[in-house]
């Protein structure tokens, strides 16, 4: 067999921080991100296959939790345990389903990098491949899950005879902003989460508090203006992108367009910083994992 290869890439591993030349580092990160899209896809397909090979209900597990959450909330609301109504023109169950699904998508994007790296421990400690691949693979998986959930949402909207307007064409952009925002937070948390279990333990609690501070079940207009709670909700970065995603999807009048664009801009800048940080942090994490 011929074992010669024409490939003669030179790699240099040095003690100096790669951050001394941030542009060069950034270029290599984007080259790796682009170069590993096929690998990321292969890994995502592998995980999705493995996930459903050991399950009878399969894809149903993607839609059952939000469905039952919605049923529960609706029971509470019908019996006046919850005083939420949601806005005019949209039935409460549809409103809850859309809001809680969008929140769930944000949280899965936030958890994504941590989950991906934890389950990739085996290859991370043994093969040197672009670590960003795992992040991209996780995003592919999230997109897959999200599209299954969107089918449920669209069926529900049609069931309640809610016809989205032309703004639905902008929904993918808003959803993208929501997922990237979650991913950015996730990337910042991941290296520390891989060292200290405390981060993973705290995440459900933080997620719960964060959800309370986000208009997932209620409308921003329902809040008494000027109160401390309303102010916190307003400055919560998830608020505008989640609200506008819901509005695009359900055909409600659009609010928050400027703040959403602002959040999107900050997210993109934040993501670049997050990727730089990720690149320099990962070798140290891998070293502590197995030394």
């Amino acid at each position, binding site marked *: 067999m011929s074992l010669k290869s024409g490939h003669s890439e030179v790699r240099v591993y*040095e*003690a100096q921080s790669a951050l001394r030349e941030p542009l060069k580092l950034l270029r290599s990160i984007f080259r790796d991100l682009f170069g590993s899209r096929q690998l990321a896809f292969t890994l995502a397909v592998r995980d999705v296959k493995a996930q459903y090979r050991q399950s009878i209900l399969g894809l149903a597990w993607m839609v059952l939790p939000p469905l039952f959450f919605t049923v529960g909330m609706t029971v509470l609301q019908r019996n006046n345990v919850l005083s939420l109504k949601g806005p005019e023109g949209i039935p409460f169950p549809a409103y809850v389903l859309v809001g809680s699904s969008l929140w769930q998508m944000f949280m899965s994007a936030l958890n994504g990098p941590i989950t991906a790296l934890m389950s990739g421990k085996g290859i991370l400690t*043994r093969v*040197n491949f672009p670590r960003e691949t795992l992040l991209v693979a996780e995003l592919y998986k999230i997109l897959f899950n999200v599209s299954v959930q969107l089918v449920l949402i669209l069926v529900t909207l049609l069931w309640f005879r809610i016809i989205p307007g032309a703004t639905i064409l902008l929904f993918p952009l808003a959803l993208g902003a929501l997922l990237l925002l979650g991913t950015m937070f996730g990337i910042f948390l991941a290296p*520390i989460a891989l060292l200290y279990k405390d981060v993973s333990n705290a995440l459900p609690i933080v997620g719960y508090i964060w959800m309370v501070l986000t208009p997932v079940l209620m409308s921003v207009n329902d809040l008494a203006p000027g109160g401390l709670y309303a102010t916190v909700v307003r400055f919560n970065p998830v608020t505008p992108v989640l609200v506008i995603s819901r509005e695009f999807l359900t055909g409600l009048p659009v609010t928050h367009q400027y703040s959403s664009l602002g959040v999107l801009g900050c997210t993109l800048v934040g993501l670049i910083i997050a990727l730089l940080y990720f690149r320099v*942090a990962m*070798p140290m994490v891998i*070293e502590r994992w197995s030394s």
Partner: protein
Amino acid sequence: MSRIEVIEEPGDHALGAGVDLNFKPGDEQEVLMEVEGLSKRFCRDLKKSLLYGVVDIAREAVGLEPRKDWLRKSEFWALRDISFKVRRGESVGLVGKNGSGKTTLMRILSGLIKPTVGRVMTKGRVAPLLALGAGFNPILTGRENIYVNMAVLGLTRAEIDDRFDEVVKFSEIEYALDAPVQNYSSGMTARLGFSCAIHTRPDILLIDEVLAVGDIQFRQKCMRTLNEMRATGTTFIIVNHAASLLLQVCNKAVYINTGKLISTGEAEDVIDEYETDLFKGGAELQQARKVDKPISSDSFAMDAVEFEQNGDTTRDLRTGRPAALRIDCHAKTKCPRVHFTIKWLRLPSEQFMTGMEETLVAQFSSNVEKAEFWMEPGKHTVRLPLNPLVLAPGSYQVVVDALDIDDAVIASRRSPAVTSLAEIPCRHSAFYQPHTWELVAEPYQAGMH
């Protein structure tokens, strides 16, 4: 059973047909790996290690230079100031006691962790065999895992499609290709992992103690493939404790102890030094190892001692079939009445362990068998047809001593380790006795006993 014959062979003749282990790459060979002043700091205390990790990440993230040459509490140097170069086609054995930093060095060379001080340059595709089948998903089938594993090692889908059949053929697990990998035995997983890794056609292979898995036949196949790969310009670095294995495949060696570089250079010298340190006081072992180095005199030398079967030089023999032992020698002066003593040694069954006894299983002397040779100056080949080979399955080496007219040893050489496998099971046998079974047409008659 064995007969010694001498074949005059005038003119030049290449050593052996296999891979030339004395291959000495000149300076014109391309440097594929360069390690300069490499040091690595580790922490013994887990809690502190995690804390230092967070501190280091924070320092890097704000762009502060890492502090060099400085140990914090509970830290130590896992590697200290290591420098060496590896050229194309060289094969380097990395030796050292447990905990001397071999694995750490391999992990830095493969780019998994960063040096604390110093620099590492690698050129070309690097395939780490630090753990076979990293990235195998137990739920998925072998077929699916080949795609995932080779993709992780850096191949595109089209390249994997191209090489898929070769990978399967080499691993010899066609029959289980569509079963989930969790049902594979560890040997099968190792076969698949090794096959995936070598078919990425790397320029540099890093092999950390993974050759010890799999059955002996597959290990031999791995060794053969590694030798072939080296002949076509692949460089490897191998960590293994078995000197005999390293000497079979490596021409250079690097010896480290407690993180410091002790010596680098020709494999035989460095491994000798390592074993001398390892067995200080164990004179016997040193004595045994000394034999490994061919000894020659002013009048006579042996260039190779090799086995042949089916007309090829081989290290994989089949018991029960004809084979031959070949001694390539050259007389520097006129040597009257040269004769040979051949000792057959059976190696410990686990050839990856050192320190176990080898046993003498047979010995023949040509002068006792009235075979002495008059050798004119020049090259000669002495051949011993073995019809058939009767060795029980196992690993063997022969030590050949050449003696002159006064019974003084004028040269000595040890063959490479060879493995014999039996086609007919003879596990409980000390040797294979050639035989046949027949039902005799005329039965015995009463009263004959």
